[in-house]
């Protein structure tokens, strides 16, 4: 599947691979994106409210409700249209795309006024023109804001931020893993061999393109290899209960998305708490969302738990960069266990 690329990336080979943050080829706002939807809806309604206060002065609520009767349908229709236009307008240049985006709300406003027969009776031409100008202005302002925002989160900037967040994977782990591999190299060469292979896999993932989408199965395999290394290191103390339900065979996730979550569980479950440690990992797909649940025992003293938040902040930061508002991460402590629930949209694209 070939796609025109508007922004040339420094690494041509890498940019061909599917990435979690799409290159902004389109300047039309993505009306289907939850983040865009919320931002636009909130922004427009807040602006309308302020405007009503300024104009109506006395009857604020009826005034706002009257305006909302026009604004809400136009808003929804515009977002929906943008969602489709975004794909359809790809062959056109940025200027045409911008004009299309700006005119959408104005056209819907006119259509609505026409439908309710407002244009013909009672309402004066100036007022219709006023609505038209207001809608165009709002459309332009929203499109401009979102385009600037998309630039601020341009692939280069996002990648730099992602790299910074990702590079915090602990060197500690690699040295301990190598130490464990060295320990079994004389007694159990085949096992040491497998362990070194796994270490290499993890190193490759850590050093690879952080935005690369990989099949879920591959990410899970990496997690299993990671756990296997930790089990060699920590012995029988660490038990992981994998509950992987049916997922779409082509489901994809950003590389190294799940591993840090499991690493966090091992770190604060097995390394800070003495004795037996059971970690539960549950992966399920509900429609277009992937739900991951991880539960691990936790130290009794709050002091020992503190570092946990740093690891989590890192994971949250990455999720926000990749998924904006479409990912949710909830955590809670229950019966001396730490429970984490992650929900992300599944990328279900067929292979290129």
């Amino acid at each position, binding site marked *: 599947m070939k796609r025109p690329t508007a922004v040339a990336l420094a690494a041509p080979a890498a940019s061909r691979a599917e990435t979690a943050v799409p290159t902004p080829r389109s300047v039309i706002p993505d009306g289907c994106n939850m983040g865009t939807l919320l931002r636009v809806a909130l922004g427009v309604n807040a602006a309308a409210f302020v405007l009503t206060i300024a104009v109506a002065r006395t009857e604020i609520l009826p005034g706002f409700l009257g305006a909302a009767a026009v604004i809400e349908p136009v808003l929804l229709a515009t977002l929906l249209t943008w969602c489709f236009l975004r794909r359809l307008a790809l062959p056109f240049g940025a200027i045409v795309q911008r004009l299309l985006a700006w005119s959408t709300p104005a056209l819907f406003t006119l259509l609505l006024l026409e439908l309710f027969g407002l244009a013909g009776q009672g309402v004066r031409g100036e007022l219709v023109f006023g609505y038209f100008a207001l809608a165009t202005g709002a459309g332009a302002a929203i499109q401009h804001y979102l385009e600037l925002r998309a630039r601020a989160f341009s692939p280069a900037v996002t990648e730099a931020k992602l790299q910074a967040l990702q590079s915090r994977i602990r*060197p500690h782990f690699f*040295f*301990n893993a190598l130490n*464990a591999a060295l320990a079994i190299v004389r007694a159990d060469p085949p096992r040491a061999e497998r362990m070194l292979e796994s270490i290499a896999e993890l190193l490759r993932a850590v050093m690879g393109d952080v935005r690369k989408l990989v099949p879920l199965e591959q990410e899970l395999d990496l997690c299993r290899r990671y756990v296997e290394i930790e089990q060699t*290191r920590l012995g029988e103390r660490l038990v992981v209960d994998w509950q992987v339900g049916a997922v779409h065979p082509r489901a994809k996730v950003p590389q190294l998305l799940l591993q840090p979550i499991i690493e966090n569980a091992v770190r604060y479950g*097995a390394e*800070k708490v*003495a004795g037996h440690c059971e970690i539960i990992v549950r992966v399920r797909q509900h429609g277009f969302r992937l739900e991951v649940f991880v539960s691990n025992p936790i130290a009794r003293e709050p002091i020992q738990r503190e570092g946990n938040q740093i690891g989590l902040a890192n994971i949250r930061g990455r999720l926000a960069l990749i998924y904006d508002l479409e990912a949710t991460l909830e955590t809670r402590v229950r019966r001396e266990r730490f429970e984490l629930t992650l929900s992300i949209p599944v990328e279900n694209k067929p292979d290129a």
Partner: protein
Amino acid sequence: MLKVLIVDDEPPARARLAQLLADCTPQVPLAIAGEADGGFRALEAVDRLGPDVVLLDIHMPDMEGIEVARHLAAREQRPAVIFTTAFDEHALQAFEVQALDYLLKPVRSERLAAALGRVKPLSAHEPKLEEVARSLGTARNNLTVSERGRMILVPVDDIVFLRAELKYVTIRTSSREHLTEESLTSLEGEFGERFVRIHRNALVARKSIHGFQRVKGGTDPEGEVSEGHWEVLLKDLPDRLPISRRQWPTVKAAAKP
């Protein structure tokens, strides 16, 4: 011949050190006295086996290596300590500065032999160790106290209050009393987050404070006039501890949730 004790919570790490020690035997005559998989067991093994050297892992779930070493430093028969760690920037910097010996995992046999070649026992209340611990910001989770010739550990969590007497500090837990030679000031410095000073001579665990009661002033039988003051009521003990006038505002503020 050097008697060596291996301490690490990871079985392969212990196995690796045992292999390397075996490799080192031609250069440095030594014998493996034993292995321990945690801090508490390490202290117990030191008392039982009397090793000359302890190879001590820094990160262990039950007790950090630095704390183990601090408890070892308080003993009369003190083994030499060589720390081992995989990668820990802060710890490494602290060691560089204080020149305590440490090995990086994966450990190389030449490096191990060299470290064993220049072992010297910990000196009493090793000041370097204290400095390393302070620069790492690690407070102990236990206090070492000597009782009838034996060293025992008192979990800091169990302590209700600490009170300076003439030469010692009394450690009061909900079940019994211990004595320590450590000063109240240094204990306050290390555990300032868990304890609040209520008087020149006493620290009380924040979580053990039940409430306060005002005691009226008056004249005692010997004719001395005393002013009114406040006392701390404890959760687990009937003891009442007087709060000095100077500390009262601090104590009151600290007790607020």
